[in-house]
């Protein structure tokens, strides 16, 4: 019996070792956006679309809690400079009947609220309209809504 178990155990470990081993660490599914999250810029601004060796990262969330949801302003570090941005999509599931995106989408804005890019291709959620804040400009340059 013990021999059988040992042999079974050996075969099981043999099976386990054929599992693909990752040589890099993978974080779990991103929650909402907080400091040091990598985000995706979805407008057609030059700053957001020129390739750089580091992805744009959030360095501050303008919120009482440090967690940014759709419609919050954050500060991004892009290409060695700081830029404000507006969150338009998050990977974390939000309230019911709101869309959930596969990437944390962000639109660059200036300090006075004007968007840096002129068009947005990705869908923008409608809930931005209900929220208090300056979103009409971002909705005006968006192509489709979700």
């Amino acid at each position, binding site marked *: 019996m013990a021999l059988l178990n040992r042999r079974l155990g050996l075969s099981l470990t043999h099976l386990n070792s054929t599992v693909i081993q990752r040589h890099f660490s993978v974080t779990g599914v991103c929650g909402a956006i907080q400091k040091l999250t990598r985000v*995706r810029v979805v407008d057609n601004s030059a700053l957001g679309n020129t390739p750089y060796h580091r992805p744009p990262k959030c360095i501050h969330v303008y919120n009482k809690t440090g967690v940014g949801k759709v419609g919050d302003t954050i500060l991004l570090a892009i290409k060695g400079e700081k830029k404000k941005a507006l969150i338009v999509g998050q990977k974390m599931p939000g309230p019911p009947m709101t869309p959930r995106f596969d990437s944390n989408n962000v639109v660059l804005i200036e300090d006075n*609220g004007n968007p840096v890019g002129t068009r947005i291709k990705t869908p923008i959620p409608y809930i931005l309209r209900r929220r208090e804040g*300056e*979103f009409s*400009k971002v909705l*005006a*340059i968006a192509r*489709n809504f979700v």
Partner: protein
Amino acid sequence: MWRRVLRPLCAAMGSAFPSGSRPGAAVPGGGVGRPARRAGGGAGATWARGAAERRRAADDALSKFNIDFVVALLRQENAKDICVIQVPPEIRYCDYFIIVSGSSTRHLHAMAYYMLKMYKHQKEESDPHAHIEGKETDDWLCIDFGSIVMHFMLPETRETYELEKLWTLHSYDDQLAQMTPQSLPEDFIFGLTPQQQ
């Protein structure tokens, strides 16, 4: 008897009333953008295309702050290049999208505050409040009145963003076509939710 004008063939596309063929082109006089078909104030929005549209038109005519009132106010304010775009109901954003140019920052602010004042004067108790967005900027203000969205821009800003092109040719806009199609970044992992995993 008020005869309905011809039903537009392309019922899906919203009809556009641009002030000129090109927004930047010099428009003679005050730059009023309404084609001859949409005659006068008349019976309000008679561009009905179905039962829902007729109901919406009826609501629009009954409410005091409708599109004709807004355009009349803008003409009174010497607004340049008034562009009223009727947004199709498939894009559930608003009914009318108005873009207006002003001669200076002060002009834009004055127009925006005046429109808000008239809205507050005319609205019923049940209508939602409207606030001016972009007060800190000096070239782009906007107000969202629910069924009407108004943008006040300087001519240079209007040239940069070209909102009329986007809202009339939704997918066929040239700036959208010039955007390079994005591919997924290398570090993007399609993460399934734990339940699915």
